[in-house]
């Protein structure tokens, strides 16, 4: 059979598929379009080079100085690098502060956005809320930090931090977390608001047409529909908290170790002071006391790694599945 049909052999291979159709070549473009095209590439490559240099620098430093034992040893007060321990407390502080800040910022940001977009009455109040959030986003963190310290030193906030009869110390994970929530709030708010605005009217109407109340529609249809936006906004907010230094130094106290403030386990920790990776880097860099520049480099490499991880996470959140939400649950063995 095959001999009767000498050309049948190639047909065993699947036909070559074209991934793209033919396109007009760059040559046929107008000069201005060509120039913009070249410029776009140049800028893109230039930016990439800068980031690559940054990452490369800290990759080398990290490989040089970032040893596993640094991650699990407490820092110690010592002038020599050999005796100053690791930065376990800074890692713990970073995580704790991020969690506290986000726990406050996420519900407030989401609720505010829901109120502004879905209710927004009276109008003037919703405008004020909008511009307030914009202002928080534009306020330098050092300004927030000074304000936070002044605020939490007031007697009424004494339970939040170490305090004596005279007044409150104002510095603790709780007070710094509260200020950090302001740093994360705009990201959460903006992402949620954009998601709400982009939610098609038809989706809400479908819910109303089933006899659902507005609140049920928001909770069960609209918010689940934008959970991806909320997650993205929260992750970005977390990144901003982790990257902040001023609030840590002023309001968290930037103590070398986490100092708990009472014997009650959790409360003591929350009312205690501590440091984060950023303040650790600052403190040990040549700009600070300059005690341990190598460890500062190691901590910076770790911080960069975390930030890259978060960005990767944001990208993942944005890309989950084709149509948004509710992926089929893969059942093992099924």
């Amino acid at each position: 059979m095959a001999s009767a049909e000498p050309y049948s052999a190639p047909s065993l291979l699947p036909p070559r598929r074209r991934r793209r159709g033919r396109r007009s070549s760059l040559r046929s473009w107008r000069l201005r379009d060509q120039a913009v095209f070249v410029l776009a590439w140049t800028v893109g490559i230039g930016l990439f080079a800068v980031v690559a240099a940054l990452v490369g620098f800290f990759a080398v430093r990290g490989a040089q100085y970032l040893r596993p034992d640094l991650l699990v040893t407490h820092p110690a007060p010592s002038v020599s690098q050999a005796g100053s321990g690791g930065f376990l407390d800074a890692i713990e502080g970073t995580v704790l502060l991020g969690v506290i800040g986000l726990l406050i910022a996420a519900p407030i940001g989401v609720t505010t956005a829901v109120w502004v977009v879905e209710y927004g009455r009276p109008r003037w109040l919703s405008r004020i809320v909008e511009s307030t959030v914009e202002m928080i986003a534009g306020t330098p963190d050092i300004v927030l930090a000074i304000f936070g310290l002044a605020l939490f030193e007031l007697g009424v906030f004494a339970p939040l931090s170490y305090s004596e009869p005279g007044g409150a110390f104002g510095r603790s994970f709780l007070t710094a977390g509260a200020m950090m929530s302001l740093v994360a709030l705009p990201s959460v708010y903006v992402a949620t608001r954009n998601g709400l605005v982009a939610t098609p009217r038809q989706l809400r109407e479908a819910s109303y047409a089933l006899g659902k109340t507005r609140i049920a529609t928001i909770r069960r249809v609209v918010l689940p529909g934008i959970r991806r936006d909320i997650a993205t906004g929260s992750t970005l907010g977390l990144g901003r908290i982790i990257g902040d230094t001023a609030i840590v130094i002023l309001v968290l106290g930037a103590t070398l170790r986490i100092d708990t403030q009472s014997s009650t386990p959790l409360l003591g920790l929350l009312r205690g002071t501590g440091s984060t990776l950023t303040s650790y880097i600052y403190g040990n860099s040549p700009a600070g006391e300059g005690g341990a520049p190598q460890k500062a480099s190691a901590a910076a490499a770790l911080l960069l790694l975390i930030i890259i991880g978060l960005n990767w996470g944001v990208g993942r959140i944005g890309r989950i599945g084709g149509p948004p939400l509710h992926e089929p649950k893969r059942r093992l063995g099924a």
Partner: protein
Amino acid sequence: MSARERLANARSGKLRPAARQSSENVALPIDNLELTADLMSVTPEKADSTTQVAGTAAHGRERLRLDDVSVFYGNTPAVKNVSLSISHGEVLALIGPSGCGKTTLLRTLNRLTELTPNASHSGQILLDGDEIDELVDTDLRSRISMVFQQPNPFPMSIFDNVGFALREQSRRRPRRPELEPLVNQALQRAGLYEEVRGDLGRSALRLSGGQQQRLCIARAIAQKPEILLMDEPCSALDPRSTAVIEDLIGQLSKDLTIVIVTHNLQQARRIADRVAFMYLGDLVEIGETEQIFTAPREQQTREYIAGVFG
């Protein structure tokens, strides 16, 4: 033909209105017996159209009554002085050129127009004798359900889409095991169950357009509404899905009142018991389907139907 046979025929959707019309005119006591409702759809009293006043129902008990209803967007009327009544178990088709107010009228019936900021209406709309504005909006809308022109499934699983309608407002309860029979039943009635039974946890957004629309119908009928409003439910669908949905409407009309907007006159003729023709916000004519298509009283109706038919 025995009642059982007729029922079977009607269930399988074989009996089209043309066939229904030829069947003998039997007077039946109208009540909620399921059998009666089934027979009703096979033997509508269409023959005695002489005793019908335009705008009154051919079928059983009156469910919905519109008295001099006008709907405005700002100060512009979109629906003008419409009066009609719709009775239990009938399929009423709203036809008319684009922009004549069909959607507006439909959305007024379940008070969805209220959600449009500058919309208002005058006149009376009575559901079983109750002014609809006096009813709680959420109650009204669970009694008068709606299917939209574009399929609009929620971004959730197939199961949750249908289950959402059955859950009490924002509560999670009742839980899945209690919902399951009801959800399956709704999916079966909407003719979707066989296609999706394997994985009800799949995202509804991954269904095809026709499947999504049937899902929306399942969702709309899950809580057993009394009246189903359908706004061009087949306009985004291929002929095959359209046929499936038309069959479905035939089945559903046994125990539901259906008001359907359609641009497809053949479709109106196939599925409707009565047809209402609207033009520039006016209800020009309402009558038995065959009368509208074969002997329209109004000039405008005649032109519209003739124009579309060629």
